[in-house]
């Protein structure tokens, strides 16, 4: 008798545990949505999503100190670098659930909002540990498509629809560049897995010209996803049009995952040939510094200003990629954690102000705010000082570590441009603290609407975290050290 067996690739459930949890919760949520009464949709959606994000954190934390390993036939690489990025993404997702709590115009689509948030986080989580251009593309599209819908989740608002359409088209062009680059690298080396590509290049089997073009197109594709100038044109529209909790999640998690992918693919696959991409990434960093900071100076809308500021922050993060030493990876990780916290906090505050006013928030709308909601105003000052990179906030340490790694890594010009960009940045970040304490604005006599307790608590918690992590950066830097050491042994 013949027993027929099928040999599959080795399966490691623990490697994809977070993705399984997130996607199955998203499916359960969408299925249950049919039976849920409308008034329960938001509480149940938020509870399931928060539970799923918390559960997804278990595996990365449990595997934190494990030695790096590959899974699923070398297509995934589970290491502290990827797991750290996963934790940042899940934390951002959790905060997005909390910030959205009580958003009136999300009530109609609360279940869809939370299910899409889970799907997007699952894609990002997979991307963070991907070790193959195929998996990277699938994961990238999984989270991108979920985000396109999330931006337009409020289908009755034209800005959201327009932002989503622009995001979709420009995002797809970016994905097409990444894909074409992947195809060319495959043509040059015959491999999709990062370590096998590196091996093929080391053995001199690769076709130089095709490989060069492929790497260039991959960098362009990554530039689109990391909203680096000159591929940033979708950013302000999508960030402004999206509901603010979605903007908060996008700005933090998308940036994290795009930078982690950029670092991983460039170091793991093309690390030997760093001369061919180092200057290109450096040029993108300089362009992002210039475009992000100069354009932000002219913005009156707070969300749009913060959108341009995220482009400026891409400059710092791409500086770390261009330097690509272990110290740079550590600095990038610390920067990403602080950046996520302060951006989500700032956007959450904008969401609160938006709900108070019932319209988009201008910088002038913060005039005299310190005399009405002192704690929230104080948090805003913390976020703005941290985004600007002033001590004693986390943003200061983040910038210092990036600069010192750039100088040690022989990319001093990037540190110099970064300092100049920071000085320009003061020009727009400090507008808001000055507006907050403006005494000339008459305080309206109408009673304030009740404070948004959950969102306000989130804002305060993130503000405290940004400050504490700036004053005591040691523990987070140690975690970043573990993460960076798992990718680069230098």
């Amino acid at each position, binding site marked *: 008798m013949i027993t027929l067996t099928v040999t599959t690739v080795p399966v490691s459930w623990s490697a994809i545990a977070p993705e399984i949890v997130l996607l199955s919760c998203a499916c359960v949520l969408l299925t249950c949505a049919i039976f849920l009464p409308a008034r329960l949709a938001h509480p149940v959606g938020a509870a399931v999503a928060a539970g799923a994000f918390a559960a997804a954190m278990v595996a990365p934390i449990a595997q934190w100190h494990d030695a790096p390993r590959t899974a699923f036939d070398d297509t995934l690489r589970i290491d502290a670098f990827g797991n750290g990025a996963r934790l940042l993404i899940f934390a951002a997702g959790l905060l997005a659930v909390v910030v959205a709590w009580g958003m009136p115009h999300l009530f109609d689509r609360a279940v869809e909002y939370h299910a899409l948030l889970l799907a997007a986080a699952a894609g990002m989580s997979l991307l963070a540990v991907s070790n193959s251009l*195929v998996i990277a593309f699938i994961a990238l599209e999984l989270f991108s*498509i979920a985000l396109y819908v999330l931006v337009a989740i409020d289908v009755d608002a*034209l800005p959201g629809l327009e932002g989503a359409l622009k995001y979709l*088209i420009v995002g797809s062009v970016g994905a097409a560049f990444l894909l074409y680059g992947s195809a060319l690298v495959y*043509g040059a080396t015959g491999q999709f897995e990062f370590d096998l590509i590196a091996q093929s290049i080391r053995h001199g089997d690769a076709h130089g010209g095709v490989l060069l073009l492929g790497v260039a197109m991959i960098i362009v594709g990554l530039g689109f996803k990391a909203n680096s100038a000159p591929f940033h044109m979708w950013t302000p529209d999508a960030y402004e049009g999206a509901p603010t909790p979605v903007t908060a999640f996008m700005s933090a998690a998308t940036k994290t995952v795009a930078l982690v992918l950029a670092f991983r693919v460039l170091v793991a696959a093309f690390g030997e040939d760093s001369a061919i991409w180092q200057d290109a990434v450096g040029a993108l960093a300089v362009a992002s510094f210039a475009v992000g900071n100069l354009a932000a100076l002219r913005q009156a809308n707070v969300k749009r200003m913060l959108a341009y500021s995220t482009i400026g922050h891409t400059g710092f993060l791409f500086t770390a990629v261009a330097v690509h030493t272990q110290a740079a990876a550590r600095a990038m990780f610390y920067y990403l954690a602080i950046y996520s916290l302060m951006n989500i906090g700032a956007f959450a505050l904008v969401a609160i102000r938006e709900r108070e006013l019932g319209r988009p928030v201008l910088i002038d709308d913060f005039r005299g705010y310190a005399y009405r909601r002192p704690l929230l105003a104080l948090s805003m000052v913390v976020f703005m000082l941290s985004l600007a990179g002033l001590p004693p906030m986390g943003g200061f340490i983040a910038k210092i570590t990036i600069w010192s790694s750039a100088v040690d890594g022989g990319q001093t010009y990037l540190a110099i441009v970064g300092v100049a960009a920071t000085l320009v940045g003061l020009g727009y970040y400090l507008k808001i603290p000055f507006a907050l304490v403006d005494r000339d604005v008459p305080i309206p006599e109408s009673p304030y609407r009740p404070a948004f307790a959950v969102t306000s608590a989130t804002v305060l918690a993130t503000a405290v975290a940004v400050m504490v992590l700036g004053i005591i950066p040691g523990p987070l830097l140690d975690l970043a050290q573990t993460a960076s050491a798992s990718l680069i042994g230098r």
Partner: protein
Amino acid sequence: MHIGVEYFVSVSAIVFGIGMFGVFTRRSPLILLLSVELMLNSCNLTLIAFSRYWGDQSGQVFALIVMGIAASEVVVGLGLVVAVARRKADLDVDRLTALRH
């Protein structure tokens, strides 16, 4: 029959260029989606050509995956176009009723 891989790569590069040109010059969302599809399909052609060149199946599998992903992307894109169009149509209908009174 033997055809050099460079012919396939050239055709795909031309198609990618046409798609890119379309994205940067046209303004209609439908044409833009069409152009993005051209770019993605040129990637598929490259993948399949190199897959045959290396005698390795993974490129072909990837091309199939890309087709699926491109289709789902277009679904979302067309959905957004319809949502925008419907909203604008609503506005027109409102104006019609306003004229009647």
